[in-house]
């Protein structure tokens, strides 16, 4: 019971609206003293998520606290989808794109959501 499949809905008024994203969540042995490992399985166009689906989120790294729960972790991920942060990128290309031409990047994200996260 350490391995979970998770689905997150793309937050409204974000490029990911309408998408259903699959993630895998793994609780290490030290949990809750160590952070859970979370990864997007669905492809997603986001400056803080790389193509392997790894997420750049402080609470999953050094800011982990045992008082955080799976629910709070997932909410944080959802919030990250609403507010991409290209200044602290995991995927350089996407971040560059986002900075150079945000409108175009948002369009790409919408496109990816439609293609990969349409719930099928």
């Amino acid at each position: 019971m350490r391995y979970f499949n998770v689905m997150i809905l793309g937050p409204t008024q974000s490029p990911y609206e309408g998408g259903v994203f699959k993630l895998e969540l793994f609780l290490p042995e030290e949990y809750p003293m160590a952070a859970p490992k979370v990864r997007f399985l669905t492809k997603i166009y986001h400056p803080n998520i790389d193509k392997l689906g790894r997420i750049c989120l402080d609470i999953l790294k050094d800011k982990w606290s045992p008082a955080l729960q799976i629910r709070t972790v997932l909410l944080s991920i959802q919030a990250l989808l609403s507010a991409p942060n290209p200044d602290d990128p995991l995927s350089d290309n996407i971040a560059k794109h986002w900075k150079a031409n945000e409108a175009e990047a948002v369009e790409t994200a919408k496109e990816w959501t439609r293609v990969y996260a349409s719930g099928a």
Partner: protein
Amino acid sequence: MGSKVTDELIAIVRSVIGDDGYSNMDVIRALYMANNDVAAAINIIFDTPDFGKKTRNSESNGLSSSYDGRAGGAIRERSKSADSNGEENLSPNDADADADADASEILGSVDGEWWLVGSAELAGMSTCKRKKLKAGERVILSFPSEVSNSPSTTKFPGRGRPAAACSEIVRFSTKDAGEIGRIPNEWARCLLPLVNDKKIRIEGCCVSAPDVLGIMDTVILSISVYINSSMFRKHVSISLKSPQSFSEESVVHPLPNLLRLLGLTPFKKAELTPEDIYRRKRNLDAKEKSGHSALTNIGSWKKLKMDAEGSNVESEQEPVSEFEMDSIVGTVDCSELEEMDPPNTLLCELWPYQKQALYWMTRLEKGRSLEEAATTLHPCWDAYRLADKRQLVLYLNAFTGDASTEFPSTLQMSRGGILADAMGLGKTIMTIALLLAHSGKGGSCSSQLLSQALTENSESCNNSDQSQTPKKLAKFGSLIGGGSLIVCPMTLLGQWKAEIESHCEPGLLSLYVHYGQSRSKEAKSLAQYDIVLTTYGVLTSEFSSESTEANGGLYSVLWFRVVLDEAHTIKSSKSQISLAAAALSADHRWCLTGTPIQNSLEDVYSLLRFLRLEPWSNWGLWNKLIQKPFEEGDERGLKLVQSILRPIMLRRTKSSTDKQGRPILVLPPVDVQVIYCELTPAERDFYDALFKKSKVKFDQFVEQGKVLHNYASILELLLRLRQCCDHPFLVMSRGDTKEFADLNKLGKHFLKGGKDVSRRDPDDVPSRAYIQEVVEELRKGEKGECPICLEAFEDAVLTPCAHRMCRECLLGSWQNHTSGLCPVCRKTINKQDLITAPTDSRFQIDIEKNWVESSKVTSLLHELKALCSSGSKSIVFSQWTAFLDILQIPLTRSNISFVRLDGTLSQQQREKVIKQFSEKKDILIMLMSLKAGGVGINLTVASNAFILDPWWNPAVEEQAVMRIHRIGQTKSVNIKRFIVKGTVEERMEAVQARKQRMIAGALTDQEVRSARIEELKMLFT
């Protein structure tokens, strides 16, 4: 003439006259004048008042300046008659009185009158040459003052020299010729301190002297000694409050010596003097060699105790076994005592031995008739008739050196004693019989006036006919006479009340319980009752050690009788409670105790001090004559204490027999059984793990050779092991919630932001609303869940930021052991800032949910269930209230109703619990903590006792058993002790047994020390 003054000579002179006061030039001049005769030069310096450049107030001795020719003549006259009368001159004359008046005017700083003590002749020694002294010439005695350095501040500036060697030399001089010589050391020694304290003053004149004086010639002087009346006032009462102020080797008191030198002999000798006691000691020494073993026993106990000093652990108190105590205090063969029937107002029958006690007590109280007592000289005081024409009598305490002009009658010697019957013989009922048989009001015997005033506000004063009582005791004058005061431990308050009410004819005695916040502070209202009951706690709180005047309440009453129940409470003589008890004023004093000696012989001292048994209330004397010899293994101390106690102590035990050899008291038999339990495998694992851990620690101490230094921590280790034998849950109990048990305080603590407000941001302090929420949650006892493990809190802690989580969870989230971030708000916190969240349970785990029976609990339940059907009542003793908590669970689950008595209950609650247990048929079990129920409580309704854990001190265990095995018990008594096999409990028993053997043979200090370590090693095998 003309020879050179050498440095050597100067140095010699210097060595005599001291370094200051005279310049080198002065010395050289003197030597020159004396033709280099050192002795002569010194005399020149000293005898020429104006010698040297210092302006010294010649003859400024305050005493001498009061004398003119007239007074001198008077003295001369008297000294002549002294010649003809022989050694003593008791005829004062008018001139003395005049001189007195003069002197006291001049000595304005000392008020009070001067009384002539007596005159005597003494042989002075001349220290000068070629001077002349006529017979009858006035001489002035000059005393070096002890602290003098500069002439301007000394009392006797003329001779104020600091040289240490001269500090005891008293010189005499005349107005004309200057210094003549010195008086014998014997006189100087006893005069000096008294003169310096301005207690006495001296007049002297020459009786005869050689025509021309030479060095070392004898000069016969006559001196008269006057004593100042102020000296007595300070010393009227026995100084109770500073028992330690007497130095160990009791000091030589100057005044008795002076009186001896003056040739005064007491017209009434003290019956008891220090010399007597020394002599008695010697006789005893010669006589007896037996009783030795008991003595060394106690001695070694004492040593054991001293070894353990520093660790004030209760269980460490070495008990004195009954046998040893009996060998010290002796069980008096009292079968010869007469019996006295109690007044018919006592509503119960007394046993014959109780009637004997009543006879004995009334006899001691009444003693000699009151008048006789008031006119009989106290045995410790000498009476001297002063030479003064006012026919004064001076009384001198042969032990303390205190002087008084008031008649020290035996009234000051309180009458009473120690009723030391063993537990369960009914000391309470004997005392109640005494209350009924002999009652009155305090102080009624000391002044008619006082007793008349008292009869007005008391119904039952039976001593109002003291018409000829000779002297009013000033000491008692300001106190209001009261009835009997009974001081007892708080637990017994209710019992005393109940017993007095049930055994006395109703309405006969008025009773008042002086306890609680609303108690009366008015002496008058206290004094109107026949019996006042109070506790040691109240007594201590009303006692202020600074001044007697400030003490109100109980101290403003002169009691007819004070009874200390469980009097061993006052055993340590330095404790407040002991001082407080001793400071009470009373005509009659009683100590009730089954154990007059609990730990050391010193315990007796406190009792004797309370009883005012002179001279033993003087610590110095007690220590020197009894305590020390006793500790050093000298049996004279023991013999002496026995002879002191014999007349004032009555002790019978349950095995005492009457005239016909029958036991004085027949009680149902007691059956003591030990139940051995086996640990379950799970318990065994737990115990072994704990034991291993403890042993590692202990072995460390052994390796470092610090076993005895770490006594307290070792006892703590043992404590945990012993608790583990009861139930492993006990080891998991925690004790640090106390401080913040009050939730309001807790809230305030958070809002203040802990201790270091200054160092914090105001933002850091959690908001008031949040705190209120947290506190409210705690108050409601809401379970809540830990944010980390998401389960119900287990051993919850509060962070300084007021977040609650399991201790284990929080500490686990940290990288290091001492500090880390708050998992909720990420604030840095230190481990020591954590507060254990207050909860109802004292256990780290929920003992109800995780309930497991320990093997001891199982076997106890087995026993209890077997008894339940028979309907006989049981008391279950443990020394840990936490274990009582644990026991409540299975009892509740099996629907067995029980009551519980422990130290947390208030007095009313206790009374209620005891009443419930005694009266309700369906309550068969009482859970009782040892400390709450150790003393006095009468629970004869029960006939079974279960002692769940062994105590270090078997005497305490015995006390507990005595709650049920005592007068009133009709059924046979079963005592069951539980011991877990193969644990520290079993070894504790072995150590106890071994101790008994060890004591039997006298051991040296070193042996005892190593034996002690051996014992501990035994426990850890």
